[in-house]
């Protein structure tokens, strides 16, 4: 059977989460692999959340916020934008593939876009296979 990746999605309450709801109300179907966690603003997303998710067995992490300029808190998404490259470089050091963690801007009217992104990411992560973190941890356990 094909590998079904597990992806954790952190969505800001005002644009992205509403956009995801719109995908639902518009009955736009997409891959069931993303599990959504709601935060008030993408600026709330602490890099440790991402690490935690990967540690606990997520194969990928999707971060969504309002489009630049749209932030409900005027510039929270810019804060995320600045934080993101640091996070990526950190992950790179851990040897985690670039495509496993992804930042996207989704507005409240972009239900379709949200669905497309979820599908696309699911495929990419599926192609990558299970997260190396998981394997590493298991190996680690085996040693003890």
């Amino acid at each position, binding site marked *: 059977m094909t590998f079904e990746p597990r992806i954790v999605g952190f969505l800001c309450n005002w*644009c992205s989460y*509403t956009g995801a709801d719109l995908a639902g*109300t518009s009955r736009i179907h997409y891959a069931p692999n993303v599990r959504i966690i709601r935060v008030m603003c993408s600026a709330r997303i602490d890099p440790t959340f991402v690490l935690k998710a990967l540690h606990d067995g997520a194969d990928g992490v999707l971060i969504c916020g309002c489009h630049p300029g749209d932030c409900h808190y005027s510039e929270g998404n810019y804060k995320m934008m600045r934080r993101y490259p640091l996070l990526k470089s950190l992950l790179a050091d851990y040897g985690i593939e670039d495509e496993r963690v992804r930042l996207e801007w989704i*507005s*409240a009217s972009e239900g379709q*876009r949200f669905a497309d992104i979820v599908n696309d990411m699911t495929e990419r992560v599926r192609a990558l296979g299970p997260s190396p973190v998981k394997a590493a941890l298991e190996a680690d356990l085996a040693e003890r």
Partner: protein
Amino acid sequence: MRTGVYLCQTGTGDLDAVDLHSVVNYAGNLPNVEMVKDLGTMPALDIEALVAEIRAHDLQRVVIAGDSPGFFKPAFTTAMNNAGGDPSEVRLASFRQHGASFGIGTVRAKSVLACATFGVPYGLAAVPDTTATHPGTVVIGAGIAGIQAALEIADAGKQVFLVERTGTIGGHMAMFDKTFPTLDCAACILTPKMVAVGQHEMIDLMTYAEVEEVSGSPGDYIVKVRKKARRVDVRACVACNVCTEVCPQRAPSEFDSGIAERKAIYIPFPQAVPNAYLVDGPSCTYVQSDGAKCGVCAKKCPKGCIDLDQVDEIVELEVGNVVLALGYDVYDARKIERYGYGVLPNVLTALEFERLTNASGPTSGKIVTKTKRFDKRRKLEEWVFDAEDGAPPTSVAIIHCVGSRDANHNAYCSRVCCMYSLKFAHLVKEKLPDADCYEFYIDMRAFGKGYEEFADRIKAEGTFVVRGRTAKVTAQDGRMVIRGEDIVSDRMVDFPVDMVILAVGLVPAAGAAELALRLGIQTDTDGWFSELDYNSDPTDTERGGIAVAGVCQGPKDIPDTVAQAAAVAAGALKSMALGRGLDSRASVSLSDIEARAAELTRV
């Protein structure tokens, strides 16, 4: 003070209700008035003659009375100065400014004139008494203006009845994709407000309802509202969509401004508030057949919240304040045959494009031209938008001032078209970078905060901004040819395009005129509601406790609308804070005004 009164009219027709003759006679009997002279309409004023007259009567004050006397003031000020008098003693008695273009014309004109001769501002002398004011407020129309006004008042813990004609709140703004100049998405801004309204404990939301009648007096109005039969229990409905799936009847979707279809039972759009369905009588088989046919939705509804036999219901609301936020309709582009709207399939109105480019629209935001398709049900060929089959346009023309700034249509400027047209250009360029995009304009009215910068940005993005209005759109081998003059580069425009977007102007909402009549408030010559004073009181009206917000008072963009809607709340909250609000201006009698004016001159 020895005062001379001159009557001068600009002849703008504002004064049909005023008996100038009796005004002249009245002026003659006012204290201190040495002379009264009617100079008629658009007099060519000879300043030297005026100087002589001022000297002859040794006038210390000159009052110019008329529909818009300001147009003659500088001549008199100069004359006064040349005659050695005090130029600041030239006073205006503007009948138009103070609402003499109304039933009470003559009396109003007299009182305005009286104040001017006393040298007292009319607004200071003609202050109506306060009346006990009921704490409730009814807001008519739930577009962004109505929503804002309702929230502002309700947040103060005051009861608001929000009456909306359609099945959902949100108005035109809910249909938009992006909003200029920040390009943030309309839904992101609006939906939180809509949800807030839907959940606000102080707002009694009445959608699919219309105001039948408003009776009573300032501070204590009885508003009769007809709750049209929605045929769906709003509270019970969970928007599960089963009814729509089974419904056999289709009709053009109002929310998608007709470029897509909806069922006879439908929800205007996914984020509608209330998030519940409604049955559109005219397109419903069951309703049209008086219950003989169909009715399948009612049978299939899992919560049994559909009652197809429901009838209209009349409710009476007792309120102290009435807020008018009727909004607008767009100009009917069919009236301008030269643009071929309704004949040429790919000539769109602004609202149609707004839906076409909207991510939640029928093509989920894909900009395509219409494709021909045979409708089996109706047995006819029709042009429809199809995200799959539709080809993206290689060139798009946007025509400004459609129905605006035109003596043959609407003479006024619709204020928002320039900017939303520029926004369209941006959206086209964003989604179809290779497509050519042309803007044909007369004046680029980018006046607001960040607008001019936005206009510059659009030009930088490669949109061809052509000064010169196109006069014709004609079909030519599958495409359309537009003809116009490119004034700046001294050329004739004569080339083919695939899509034409008409920047249609704004017109007063259907029924606004009747409502104004019923409420006893004035409208201007274009049909927009008249404010109490253009400058100092842009939100109140002649009638106490009745205020106007948003476009129904005159075309406005969203920021200006929101500001004005909030301003309306100030008036309402003021009256609630004291439990008393101002009476109608007409309630102040001429004699009272004379007395007050005289008194004010003493202190």
